[in-house]
């Protein structure tokens, strides 16, 4: 059976449809045939109606408002990466995501709605303290990214809501660190990804966000461990190092799947923590040696 295809003309119409009936919102569609394809040549085995929203101008715009970047949920990765205000760490994640043909259709809204624990772009959104704008006919609300994604494939998005935008605070990434570990450079889903960014002032650490993807049911971020690093200088980071590594390793709960094993993911997480704490942070906190 072929799923019904609905194409609203405006965001308002899309929200009205969303409030009236169950539809699956769709923009880049990069996962539709991968996840629901039957045998070759058959239509996707998806029984829900699909509502295409990738063409809605209200959802594809990217703009800057005061100290915040507003990325339309259906803006494609290529356009997000090309925008002059996009933080470097998000550009890095996009550069390593898929390949040009996927970046020309894939969207941040889709990456969030899918709620995969291995979502690369979403991982950097955690580190950047991004918020997600969810709209319904009744109005819009802004929810922190870690409160939107509640588990693998699970979100706090209500049945009548659509993801309309991603709001990224600007100016919190004077340094950043991003590593993606996958089978090949292009088009590979992550075995895991590590994103960190923050501010350094007077040789001490200010605002900081550290996010690790694909090592638990959702992206892992610890406000508690970040708080311990806040205000630290290079020497204090060196003293806290072992505790921090142990703290993060206690939080990760990787699984074995077709892409990697739990043990490998744990080892690589530890190695990336070491690289971040022993090389990235000291080089930013101590300045050039």
């Amino acid at each position, binding site marked *: 059976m072929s799923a019904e295809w609905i194409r609203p003309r405006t965001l308002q119409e899309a929200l009205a449809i969303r409030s009236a009936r169950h539809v699956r919102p769709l923009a880049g569609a990069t996962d539709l045939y991968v996840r629901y394809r039957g045998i070759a040549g058959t239509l996707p085995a998806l029984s829900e109606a699909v509502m295409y929203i990738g063409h809605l101008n209200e959802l594809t715009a990217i703009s800057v408002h005061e100290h915040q970047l507003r990325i339309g949920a259906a803006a494609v990765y290529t356009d997000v990466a090309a925008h002059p205000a996009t933080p470097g760490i998000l550009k890095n994640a996009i550069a390593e995501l898929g390949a040009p*043909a996927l970046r020309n*259709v894939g969207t941040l809204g889709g990456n969030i709605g899918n709620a995969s624990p291995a979502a690369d772009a979403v991982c950097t959104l955690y580190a950047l303290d991004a918020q997600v704008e969810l709209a319904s006919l009744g109005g819009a609300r802004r929810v922190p990214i870690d409160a939107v994604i509640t588990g693998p494939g699970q979100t706090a998005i209500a049945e009548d809501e659509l993801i309309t935008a991603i709001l990224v605070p600007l100016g919190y990434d004077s340094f950043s660190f991003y590593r993606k570990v996958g089978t090949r450079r*292009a088009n590979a889903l992550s075995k895991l990804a590590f994103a960190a960014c923050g501010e350094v002032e007077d040789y001490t650490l200010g605002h900081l966000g550290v996010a690790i993807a694909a090592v638990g049911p959702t992206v892992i971020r610890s406000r508690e461990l970040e708080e311990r690093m806040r205000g630290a200088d290079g020497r204090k980071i060196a003293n806290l190092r072992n505790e921090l590594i142990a703290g993060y390793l206690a939080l990760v709960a990787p699984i074995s799947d077709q892409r990697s094993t739990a043990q490998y993911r744990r080892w690589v997480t530890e190695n990336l923590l070491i690289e971040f704490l022993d090389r990235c942070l000291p080089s930013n906190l101590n300045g050039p040696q």
Partner: protein
Amino acid sequence: MRRLLDVLREDCGLTAIKEGCGEGECGACAILIDGRVVDSCILPVGAAQGREIETLESIRETARGRLIVDGLSRGGGVQCGFCTPGIAVTIEALLRENPNPSEYEIRDGISGNLCRCTGYQQIVEGVLYTAAETRERSR
């Protein structure tokens, strides 16, 4: 909703594009939509509504399209040929945006296209030839 790939091949008779992996990994089905490269095997036809579609059938008739084919041929970038139409379309998208790509930029540009025969070096050399020749002729 049918895939754009099937509509182009079966209804429009545009058979230059190929279905390789069928899940957006290999680029054999690459086409241009509004001038940007897209994998037609994972695109529902509805997502292309009202947009400009170009396939190898039109690109190869242009001056640069002929140079792309020529470059792939001279560089030895074609063996079995299954990936070649998608690679040629992807090269067109790359050169439109960046007429003078570095070797790194070429490799990044074709990173979504798998070729199991050539090992890519010959394709990269073919693109360098095409880019240089296109610039030379437009002087």
